[in-house]
């Protein structure tokens, strides 16, 4: 069977084959066709504010050093000594002009260029040849602080790749002072399940009142009227103003903002109780008066899920990154974001906003994501039933008028529709049957 017929069989109009979540060979192909073929999120610029700052990261399974080199250029170096293959950097972050491999002492500048090797007189070769420099991702670009990289020389520009998803990303940033955020540590989880189980879930409005039942009940246990948190999913979510939108290239968007009135304070009002909320709210109201509500909304969780295929989601105030570890194991990192208020738009209240915002961001990983992860693990276990081959994602399919094609080429559907999943699976299928033009630079 040719590769394309094989993948046409695995991804059908209404369902996908279990093996795309369970087969180690398909996972191995994904590491080149998906995680080598498209722009993947690597790091946030706030992790690398100064020249020579670096973090270690992964592109698929490839170990990377993402660095702002001594000249200020962002690079993604393969963390793999050219000599014998050892990881040259074993720290998770730091500031370094050079990296020396601990095994035989080969040393590289943070541009990836080989600086020198011990006792070069023992070599007949010319080390000034580029072939001994560290390999690196040839294309690294930043979009408003989000650093992406791709190995695919034929990939479009990053801006084109993000396409229509740029608008919600811009809105997500521009609600914050100065239109930017910085990372503020992370809640890190891992689960024994395929990475796509989490990406399939990223805009899923169907699971919320079931998978997150305990969260919904907890958020509303004190409220006089049960309107806190994600309570807008109760009742008939498809009739609520929120919607799901498919942007193309595997990116999608769950926009829950239309459930709220467009006025300052509407977001703050539905935030569930968190440590320190009352005291800081009082402080902010005293200091800012009529402008307090805008500041308080910044402490509350923005009701959007902006999902950039294959590994990035902006959810609430989080930057969530999916890191595949194996066909059946995935890390899900929920980077918290803090605001920075250099122009003092918030009258000195940025620290107070952040003090609340840290607690509101801990809420979902602790009270929501753990239950999703438990369900992802149960899917992975369920899929061991090898004769029961199909996983369905046909909610909304074939109902006239339910999915609307907008003039800009995007698709829009009610909140619980699985159209976004069907569409990203089509894109996945396309990528798996297209050989990317993978290039390394040195």
């Amino acid at each position, binding site marked *: 069977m040719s590769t394309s017929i094989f993948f046409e069989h695995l991804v059908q109009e209404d369902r996908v084959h279990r093996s795309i979540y369970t087969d180690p060979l398909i996972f191995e192909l994904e590491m080149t066709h998906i995680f080598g073929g498209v722009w993947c999120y690597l790091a946030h610029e706030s992790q690398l504010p100064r020249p020579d700052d670096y973090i270690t990261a992964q592109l698929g399974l490839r170990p990377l050093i993402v660095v702002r080199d001594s000249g200020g250029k962002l690079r993604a170096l393969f963390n793999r000594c050219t000599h014998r293959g050892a990881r040259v950097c074993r720290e998770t972050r730091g500031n370094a002009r050079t990296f020396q491999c601990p095994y035989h002492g080969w040393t590289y500048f943070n541009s990836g260029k080989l600086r020198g090797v011990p006792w070069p007189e023992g070599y007949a070769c010319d080390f000034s040849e580029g072939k001994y420099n560290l390999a690196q991702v040839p294309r690294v670009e930043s979009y408003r602080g989000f650093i992406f990289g791709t190995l695919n020389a034929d990939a479009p520009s990053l801006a084109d790749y993000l396409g229509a998803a740029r608008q919600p990303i811009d809105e997500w940033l521009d609600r914050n002072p100065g239109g930017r955020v910085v990372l503020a540590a992370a809640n*890190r989880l891992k*689960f024994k399940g395929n990475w796509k189980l989490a990406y399939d879930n990223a805009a899923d409005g169907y699971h919320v009142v079931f998978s997150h039942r305990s969260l919904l009940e907890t958020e509303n*246990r004190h409220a006089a009227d049960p309107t806190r948190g994600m309570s807008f999913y109760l009742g008939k979510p498809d009739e609520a103003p929120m919607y799901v939108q498919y942007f193309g290239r595997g990116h999608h968007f769950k926009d829950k903002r239309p459930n709220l009135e467009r006025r300052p304070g509407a977001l703050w009002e539905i935030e569930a109780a968190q*440590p*320190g909320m009352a005291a800081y709210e009082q402080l902010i109201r005293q200091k800012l008066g009529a402008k307090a509500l805008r500041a308080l909304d910044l402490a509350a969780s923005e009701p959007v899920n902006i999902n950039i295929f294959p590994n990035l989601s902006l959810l609430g105030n989080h930057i969530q990154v999916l890191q595949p570890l194996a066909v059946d194991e995935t890390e899900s990192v929920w980077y918290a974001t803090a605001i920075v208020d250099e122009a003092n738009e918030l009258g000195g209240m940025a620290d107070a906003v952040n003090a609340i915002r840290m607690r509101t961001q801990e809420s979902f990983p602790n009270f929501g994501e*753990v239950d999703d992860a*438990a369900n992802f693990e149960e899917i992975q276990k369920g899929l061991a039933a090898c004769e029961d081959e199909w996983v369905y994602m046909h909610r909304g399919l074939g109902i006239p008028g339910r999915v609307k094609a907008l003039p800009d080429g995007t698709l829009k559907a009610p909140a619980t529709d699985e159209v976004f999943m069907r569409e990203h699976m089509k894109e996945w299928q396309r990528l798996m049957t297209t050989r990317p033009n993978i290039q390394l630079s040195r």
Partner: protein
Amino acid sequence: MSYVDDRFYADIVAAFTGWQRPELAVTDVATRDECRRLLEWEARLLDEARYDDWLALYAEECVVWVPATERPGDPRREVTVFFDDRQRLQDRIFRLRTGKAWSQVPPSRTVRLVSNVEVFRAAGKMMVRSNLVLHEFRSGEMRTLAAWCAHRLSGGKIEAKQINLLERDQSLRNPSILL
């Protein structure tokens, strides 16, 4: 209403900084035994899911702080694994009791070992350092969490507890039990 305010945070950050100094160590055997027994009893109540009894060990204004960074830092500036005041701890217990917290359906079985108890007296409060090894069995698998803990005690109650997991800045699998 939460009693957590800027002063509360500042007090907690200060209380959990620089207290493990030899000159502050409490050598009195009876005091050390009292502290050790409290920690062992807490471990037992958590292992037996007696959450109301467990929470009764805590002062009215209390916190359980699990840092997510190599050094504890300031929880006002960065997220933690969790930083739970009394209401948040009650939320956690409430959630587990809904029967729909799927990460704990069925619940984990746990055994906690508390050891290496050292007692200090700092700023008029008892500060207790201990090591914790937590064995967790769920869904056919055994797991281990290890941490060093700091309890701040006053009037026989736990005012604040800091749990420094070995994996605090790494990914945790199903971190859904009460710690």
